[in-house]
């Protein structure tokens, strides 16, 4: 196989690309492009933000530190060195960052400038800078001047050189067509600095479509599937692990579609969190706002709903809401498919109902029987991992609960339903007094642990608070509402 993509407008060819080399290390160590910075090496600070244009012309900001080279196949990568025009004219984001004193130490600046440019390229004048920049930490400025820079460029035209990547991809696409061959074992020794275990031989595979993947994975059940690498990337950058045989599945036809089916909304496992957000924001506003708080723009643009589910984390933010929505999971192994309730997928901490060679193909959300309330509690509002996250699907008739599905993350070793709480809710008045028995039942459904994010006692107390907030939701504004409407 050979990997090919555009780097700042120039074609790059890899006869034998090291499949677990991160884009950040490759840029800095092999290409000498040191403008892209390493701040955390785990996708949490945004200092390494780069722009990636897909063959369909869409542009995303991504964290280069956990972006593996094969994920760039057939795409266009643009770094801070390529953000200004070829004649040196600064991109409006760059100029605004200077004009508004948006850089102090300057280390987060390339990433922030790229994130600003990505938001700017979306050409959405209403794009909320709080969302666009939630994934970029700055320790110097307090963000105020960056917010001023963001406002200043809201209506500036998109420079034509930014759109050039999409045009170039269209021209080049026959040459950059997704290769179906495997990256040969034994590759990776030729790049400078590529002598360490992470770059050592690993078989990498890119499926033609979902059936191709299913057949390959059945034949290689020990292999790891790489979608957005937002979690898996840390096994490389922090765990320093050898990941063995890999399949790169982002963009795989049959895994990336969102479709209406008789059973409900079927979401392919490789649909990114960002695309999911767009798809459900209107139908389930609470869920949409929650999804906005999963990771940050760069993480949502890479991470997938399948990955969010399949990694089995007790604190993944997708599962509680999806369980409350009654979602089902389609698992695929070879030609065989089976469908299970999402909550049944999570067996215990670190263990899921997934056979070797089997993978998550899709998640299906049935028509909603009521209203979904979702609340996430974390130390920091944006881009934090939940201390707990609760979801309530509630239908009422004449003020009494007729349908209740409740699930929490962060309250057990897995995302978990709350059967006793649900039982206490059904038939009860949907009011602060009416849910009192349900509040008590939460302590029977869950025995949370204490860790660095929260104590067990707080988790239980806040879980009750979340249920009360779901009840009171129509009566009082949530905190954010006060932020927007209540301030003097």
């Amino acid at each position: 196989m050979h990997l090919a993509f555009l780097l700042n407008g120039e074609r790059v060819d890899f006869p034998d690309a090291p499949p677990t080399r991160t884009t950040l290390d490759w840029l800095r160590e092999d290409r000498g492009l040191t403008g892209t910075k390493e701040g955390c090496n785990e996708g949490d600070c945004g200092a390494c933000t780069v722009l990636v244009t897909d063959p369909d012309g869409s542009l995303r900001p991504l964290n280069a530190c956990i972006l593996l080279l094969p994920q760039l196949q057939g795409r266009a990568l643009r770094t801070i060195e390529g953000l200004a025009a070829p004649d040196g004219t600064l991109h409006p984001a760059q100029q605004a960052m200077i004009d508004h004193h948006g850089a102090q130490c300057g280390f987060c600046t390339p990433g922030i400038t790229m994130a600003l440019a990505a938001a700017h390229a979306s050409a959405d004048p209403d794009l909320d800078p709080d969302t666009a920049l939630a994934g970029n930490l700055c320790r110097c400025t307090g963000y105020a001047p960056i917010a001023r820079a963001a406002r200043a460029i809201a209506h500036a035209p998109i420079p034509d050189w930014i759109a050039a990547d999409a045009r170039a991809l269209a021209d080049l696409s026959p040459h950059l067509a997704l290769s179906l061959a495997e990256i040969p074992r034994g590759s990776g020794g030729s790049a400078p600095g590529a002598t360490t275990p992470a770059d050592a031989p690993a078989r990498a595979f890119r499926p033609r479509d979902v059936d191709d993947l299913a057949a390959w994975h059945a034949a290689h059940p020990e292999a790891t599937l790489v979608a957005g690498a937002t979690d898996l990337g840390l096994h490389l950058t922090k765990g320093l692990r050898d990941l063995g045989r890999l399949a790169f599945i982002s963009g795989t036809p049959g895994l990336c579609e969102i479709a209406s089916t008789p059973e409900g909304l079927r979401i392919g496992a490789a649909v990114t969190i960002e695309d999911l957000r767009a798809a459900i924001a209107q139908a389930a506003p609470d869920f949409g706002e929650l999804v906005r708080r999963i990771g940050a723009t760069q993480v949502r643009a890479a991470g997938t709903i399948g990955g969010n589910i399949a990694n089995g984390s007790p604190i993944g933010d997708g599962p509680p809401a999806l369980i409350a929505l009654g979602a089902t999971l389609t698992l695929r192994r070879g030609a065989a498919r089976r469908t299970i309730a999402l909550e049944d997928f999570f067996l215990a901490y670190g263990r899921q109902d997934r056979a070797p060679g089997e993978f998550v193909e899709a998640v299906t959300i049935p028509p909603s029987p009521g209203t979904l309330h979702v609340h996430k509690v974390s130390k920091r509002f944006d881009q934090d991992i939940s201390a707990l996250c609760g979801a309530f699907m509630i239908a009422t008739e004449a003020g009494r609960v007729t349908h209740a599905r409740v699930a929490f993350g962060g309250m057990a070793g897995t995302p978990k339903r709350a059967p006793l709480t649900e039982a206490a809710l059904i038939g009860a008045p949907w009011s602060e007094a009416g849910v009192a028995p349900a509040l008590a039942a939460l302590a029977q459904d869950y025995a949370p642990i204490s860790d660095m994010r929260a104590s067990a006692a707080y988790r239980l107390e806040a879980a009750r608070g979340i249920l009360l907030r779901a009840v009171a939701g129509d009566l009082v504004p949530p905190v954010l509402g006060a932020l927007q409407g209540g301030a003097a």
Partner: protein
Amino acid sequence: MSVADPLPHDSARLHVTGAARYVDDIPLPANALHLAFGLSDVAHGVIEALDLSAVRASDGVVEVLAAGDLARPADVSPSAHDEPLLAEGRVHYAGQPVFVVAATSHRAARVAARRAALRVAPLPAILTVDEALAAGSRFEGGPVVWDKGDAEAAIAAADLVVEGTLELGGQEHFYLEGQAALALPGEGGEMHVIASTQHPTEVQHKVAHALGLPQAMVRVECRRMGGGFGGKESQGNALAVAVAVVAQATGRPCKMRYDRDDDFLITGKRHDFRIDYRAGFGRDGRIRGVAFRHLVRCGWSQDLSLPVADRAMLHADNAYRIPAMRIESHRLRTNTQSATAFRGFGGPQGVAGIERVMDHAAHALGLDPIELRRRNYYAEMPAPRPDRTPYGQEVRDFILGGLTEKLLDGADYAARRAEIAAWNAGQRVLRRGIGFAPVKFGISFTLSHLNQAGALVHVYTDGSVHLNHGGTEMGQGLFQKVAQVAAAEFGVPVSAVRITATDTAKVPNTSATAASSGSDLNGMAVQAACAEIRARMAGHLASLHQITPDAVVFAGGAVQAGGARYSFAEAATLAWQGRVSLSATGFYRTPDIAWDRARGEGRPFYYFAHGAALTEVVVDRLTGEYRILRADILHDAGASLNPALDIGQIEGGYVQGVGWLTTEELVWDNAGRLRTHAPSTYKIPAFGDRPAVFNVALHQGANPAATIHRSKAVGEPPLMLGISALMALSDAVAAFGGGRVYPALDAPATPERVLAAVERMRG
């Protein structure tokens, strides 16, 4: 006139194009090595066995050194010579470097460093201040105690006594650029170190000592840091010494940068404090006396803990005239990372203590907290009879009275206070709160001899100016401010001044860029150097034109002498042709300071910088979550050298202070292992955490002290403005109660702590 212009940061264009080079961006010679430390995961114990064979066998490894392999003992302490580069026999905290690996790539070194077989026989670990107190584990033998008057008697005689405890967590610096250093061995044993450090001279000293070289053979350079905040005052020593030692041993260039998790695990953070207080107030709201006990968790080595704890004591009065005061400061040794300098250097903890006392007293007296504070302010400048601080310094430049008035007017405080009360009355789940914090911060190193600086300036015959001084650039804009000073001296545009990297080979024997002193000290040194060259040029032109030197005018990029008008370049060329030296050093030492640390008396500070902030928050009683709705800040930067850069320091300092007191929580487990060691678990403020409405302004006015162009230091003081957010949260929490119980909100005020405080309101 370049001074006072709101010019952008000198590297702004380089920053936004990715062209600004940090240590890790410097192209390396082909045979360079990359280093990583192997760390202890035990908090305290005896090293029983260290088998490094698997490390040596790991791919790409060239050298592996433990303490016993070093040619000579290497120490990295900035103070007490108590920090071996690599653990010697014992480990003192989880995260302590035990050995160093050099390999052909950064990743290879990291992989190898995890392959050691290290067996440590655990010893009892002292992790908390309570354990340290019980074990008598401390620095300086016993507590440092300062008394002014008889505090206990004053408190006993007061109408009202408030007492309590304030817990203040530590804080990780989270400079975006992690620690990094590069050593390039030169001929004849010379060593050139390029490091991300606030203190090149100290790095030079530590490297010279570790290599057994005279200081003259070690050159340390720093063009810029990607953030410092005090975290690169002493905490970079270990990397710089390590790269130099391995470079000497192998003859190859060596680079080391910490992975972010290692950076968290190895390096020191802000000291966490427990402050016990007892204070007596009159019914008039005037404080009669206060007694503080500071329990300072210093970690395993002394580092800078003594002056940090001193500065906390020196700021325990903050803005208030306190007739009687007692402070006991316990500097406790624990088996944790060695707490170190962090913006404010103990001052924020000291200020937070007295601000808590004021807030508590206002609650108890039913007085407006701002009104109570104002009644206790020091006498306003110009005071006929200036007050004295508890440590005996006259407060001659106090301006918080007028500044507070102006802030409250601009922020519409009275009306908002009433509106919030009315709004709260209509809410079931939410309460808004408003909080105020003033700051009076003493400017000067408390170790008086550090208050000196040097500069080196060259003028070339084309009129360009080469500028160098001992200060380091970490984002604060020091280089640009000082360039503005130089440009003003020569009457040339700032673009004619070439800023160059801090370099121990150009300006020797410098102090750390710390204590907010960067532009005060280096600005004056540069001014002196420029004035010297200008005087020589003026003298020469004066003699050519038969006029007096003071009739030669440097302005607008030109030099007027008699009837002639020269470009600055022509004037420089004339001087050169006249065999006049166009190179000069400059030197400055802060006048009028004298401090007796043992007695806790004297004038440690040349002057005070001031500021005040008003913050409004909303709190949700169901989960304890909250948001900052608005902040209004008025800050005193004297006659600002660069208002844009100063505003940047204020906005950034405030948000950093808010982070310290709200979301930034360091959590150690029972074995003393830090559990929050990456941004995934340690939460500095993110973009959406800045106040939704954020009004920041300078309180312009000349510094009565003769500082550089009458400006004031601005690096650290604004951090303490973040205390207003803690006060606002306390106010909102109090609004859930009936006024009987004081919230006593500890920091960091995470949603969990806020919820616990809300629940106390019901009790």
